[in-house]
């Protein structure tokens, strides 16, 4: 065999992801041998939260991410309720679930059509959809047109999903209904009815468009049922609480080698060996985030969350696998499919919840926060496992740590040299054109990247410029 050429390419910026990011690929012959994903910005939300009124956290943390705002609102509310040992009225939990679930639908529609599918179908020739990212478009004209129509419809549908969220939550993104203690808006028959009508449109779109469209993609791009498999270890947190005893619609857990195992949040740590932060492996309840920009070998602003020292992938695929709704495989297309399957499940759930709402039952009960205390809020967000760890002292936030789903997925390598799940999934991927590795883009996007969420924090004292890859 002839000697294979090795080359390194960097793609900057990666379009159709949330936030500024880049990826560097080492390609040997026609295979990716090593991949590194780097987030290119830092915001420092955890530092910003310190010293503030804890009740503000559900609103303020939503500002971390515009596309999954409700998830942060829910996690922060749960953390405070957990600290206060609050009894939230069930009606309030249902309404919060509805507002949150609709935001998930909005995300899945936006992600699949606006961010992911332009890699697979030739989008209409209108800026900013030209120039196209690839020449590898395989859908016959008729099907391509079908996806084009769905794309346009999706733009409206995602706005309708947010309209439904706002109907309950005041506005979206950054919903006002996300509060510790329940939900502020007592339901009325008229609102329930309007919701059901908006929901019917979403349901129609998901069943008539989203699922068939994805099946089509699966038919014409069959190799993606195999590519991008990663570690095969999945993690997910309990999602959509139904009462104060811990009953949730989607259960949390882990998947290792296809088997579902239980989850213990105490075993989660964050490693910063390859991130521009000081310290080693720390638990999120006590962990620090102090920057060290000249650190040897570091290459990302994202910390590396690990469960018992091992990297785990998270997302709708993890949620669907653990709850038994999608167990076909762990490839790039499985991730996309799991999202659509989840979207369908969730619209049905919302419908049930809307029917279960009691019109005159209480929805909100103010919580009593202790002067000192700790709280933990875990939920499944749009992109997977989201955790907020909060500590208050003297009635003020003294410590706040957030582990986002994107941190799990986009984590850099750790002390043991294990690359993050996305980096692992990119390894060994064959590429047709090493100068334009469209395959890498497709696999990376199958995780629904969101760097707004993934990046953590820096101290105000940092002076030096950080080094560049």
């Amino acid at each position, binding site marked *: 065999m002839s000697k294979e050429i090795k080359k390194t390419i960097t793609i900057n*910026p990666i379009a159709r992801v949330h*936030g500024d990011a880049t990826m560097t690929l080492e390609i040997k012959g026609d295979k990716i041998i090593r991949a590194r994903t780097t987030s290119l910005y830092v915001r420092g939300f955890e530092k910003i939260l310190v010293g503030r009124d804890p009740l503000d956290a559900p609103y303020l943390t939503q500002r971390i991410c515009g596309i999954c705002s409700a998830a942060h609102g829910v996690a922060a509310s749960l953390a405070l309720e957990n600290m206060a040992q609050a009894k939230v009225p069930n009606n309030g939990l249902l309404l919060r679930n509805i507002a949150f679930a609709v935001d998930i639908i909005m995300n899945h529609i936006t992600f699949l059509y*606006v961010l992911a599918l332009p890699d697979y179908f030739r989008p209409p020739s209108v800026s900013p959809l030209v120039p196209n990212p690839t020449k590898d478009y395989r859908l016959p004209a008729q099907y391509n047109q079908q996806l084009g129509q769905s794309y346009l419809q999706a733009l*409206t549908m995602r706005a309708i999903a947010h309209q439904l969220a706002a109907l309950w939550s005041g506005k979206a993104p950054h919903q006002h209904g996300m509060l510790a203690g329940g939900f502020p808006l007592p339901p009325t028959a008229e609102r329930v009815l309007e919701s059901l009508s908006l929901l019917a449109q979403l349901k129609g779109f998901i069943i008539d468009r989203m699922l068939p469209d994805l099946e089509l993609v699966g038919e014409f791009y069959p190799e993606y049922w195999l590519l991008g498999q990663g570690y095969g270890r999945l993690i997910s947190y309990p999602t959509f609480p139904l009462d104060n005893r811990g009953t949730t619609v989607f259960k949390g857990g882990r998947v290792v080698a296809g088997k579902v195992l239980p989850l213990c949040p105490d075993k989660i740590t964050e490693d910063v060996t390859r991130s521009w932060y000081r310290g080693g492996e720390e638990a999120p309840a006590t962990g620090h985030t102090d920057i060290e920009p000249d650190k040897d070998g570091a290459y990302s602003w994202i910390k590396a969350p690990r469960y018992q020292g091992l990297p785990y992938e998270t997302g709708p695929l993890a949620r669907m696998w653990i709850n038994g709704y999608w167990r076909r495989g762990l490839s790039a297309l499985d991730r996309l499919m799991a999202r659509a399957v989840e979207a369908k499940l969730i619209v049905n759930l919302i419908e049930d919840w809307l029917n279960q709402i009691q019109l005159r039952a209480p929805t909100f009960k103010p919580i009593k926060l202790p002067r000192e205390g700790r709280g933990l809020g875990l939920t499944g967000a749009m992109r997977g496992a989201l955790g907020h760890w909060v500590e208050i002292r003297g009635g003020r936030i003294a410590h706040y740590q957030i582990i986002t789903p994107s941190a799990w997925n986009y984590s850099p390598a750790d002390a043991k040299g294990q690359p993050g799940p996305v980096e692992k999934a990119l390894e060994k991927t064959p590429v047709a054109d090493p100068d334009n590795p469209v395959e890498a883009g497709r696999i990376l996007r199958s995780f629904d990247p969101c760097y707004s969420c993934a990046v953590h924090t820096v101290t105000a004292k940092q002076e030096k410029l950080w080094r560049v890859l």
Partner: protein
Amino acid sequence: MLFPLVKTMWGKAGRLLKQADFRRLLRAGKNTYSFLADMLLPEVKRSWQPKDRLPVIWVEALSCTGDTISFENSLNPGSWEILTELIDLRYHYMLMAASGNDAMDVMYDVANSEQGRFILIVEGAVPIGDKERFTIVGTKRGIAGFETPDELLTAYDAISYLGRRARHVMAVGSCATWGGPSAAYPNPAGCVGVQKALPKRRVINVPGCPAHADWMVGTLAHLVLYGEPEIDAYGRPTDFFGQTIHNLCTRRQHFENGIFARKLGDPGCYYRLGCKGPVTFADCPIRRWNNTSNWPVEDNTPCIGCTAPGFPDEMEPFFHHLPDIKLPNITTTATAVAKAVAAVTAAGIGTHLAVTWGSGHLAKTIKRGLPLRQKPPRAGLTGKISNVLRSQKSLWYPDSNGKWDR
């Protein structure tokens, strides 16, 4: 329904509707749009020439992408109509199909071939100074004319390069206008708003967290059709930000009559639960959010003042009616800062209260006292803070060694 109307005016070069009328429509609720648009629709179809759309470059600095999400929430006109008929969105980090060099080339092509014609929209705050490289938005592709020699394109580099060449610069969202949540104390990434980063250029500020789709689309439409809109001292279009929430609020009569909500979720005015409506300029109560479905006070929660300069620091705590002032170390200058900040928020509310003092039930309510959750800060700390501040709840803060001062 703004859209067909815009088309009409474009086609007829403003003859059909004068700018003043257009602005009146912008200020009015959405229903007026649809009514007028329906009448004008047949006219529109004949006269509209989409090829005259102005090119737009949308740059994301340090943001949460919420303003893009909100922009896409526009339903009348829908985002597709906007893209195909109002503007030519050539570069948008999240929506565009191409990545890497292909994407950057589009940006530089527009900046040079459409110089003086394109509109620059910036979302997110801009890290400057030694933190400039906290936000990298792309690469320079070996193009000359930047302030720093490095190959990576920082957000500041991008907006100063593009800002010099653009016809209009529009900052969307409170992060881009004044720093917003990205620049909240202690401002870990060293961010400022776009106007501060580009002191020599006029920036049209469309604040909000996120900015309402109508505010962004309406301002864009004005830029395309008539050039710069009338703006206030903060650079905000007066069409949308000319009145306070409080003036337009549907629960204003509750305020006047002293009917206040006692806990979140209650009906009534949210003043006692921290509503910042009296000092926040925006038209949420009549425009309403997400295709007119709701707005925060109707959701039984307080307005948190997200369109105001100084959001979120000067608007916190959200659920108390007085500002929370972030003072890293209390110094003499901090007193001045505190006074100024308190003046902005408290004065607005105070004046209003003074006026309403004698009337209605409010006087009684005030005499009973407004509830404060936190105790006032201890003497050593308060000694240095003005009386205005002392009457409010202040905060204690870790000192530079991370110790908690109590």
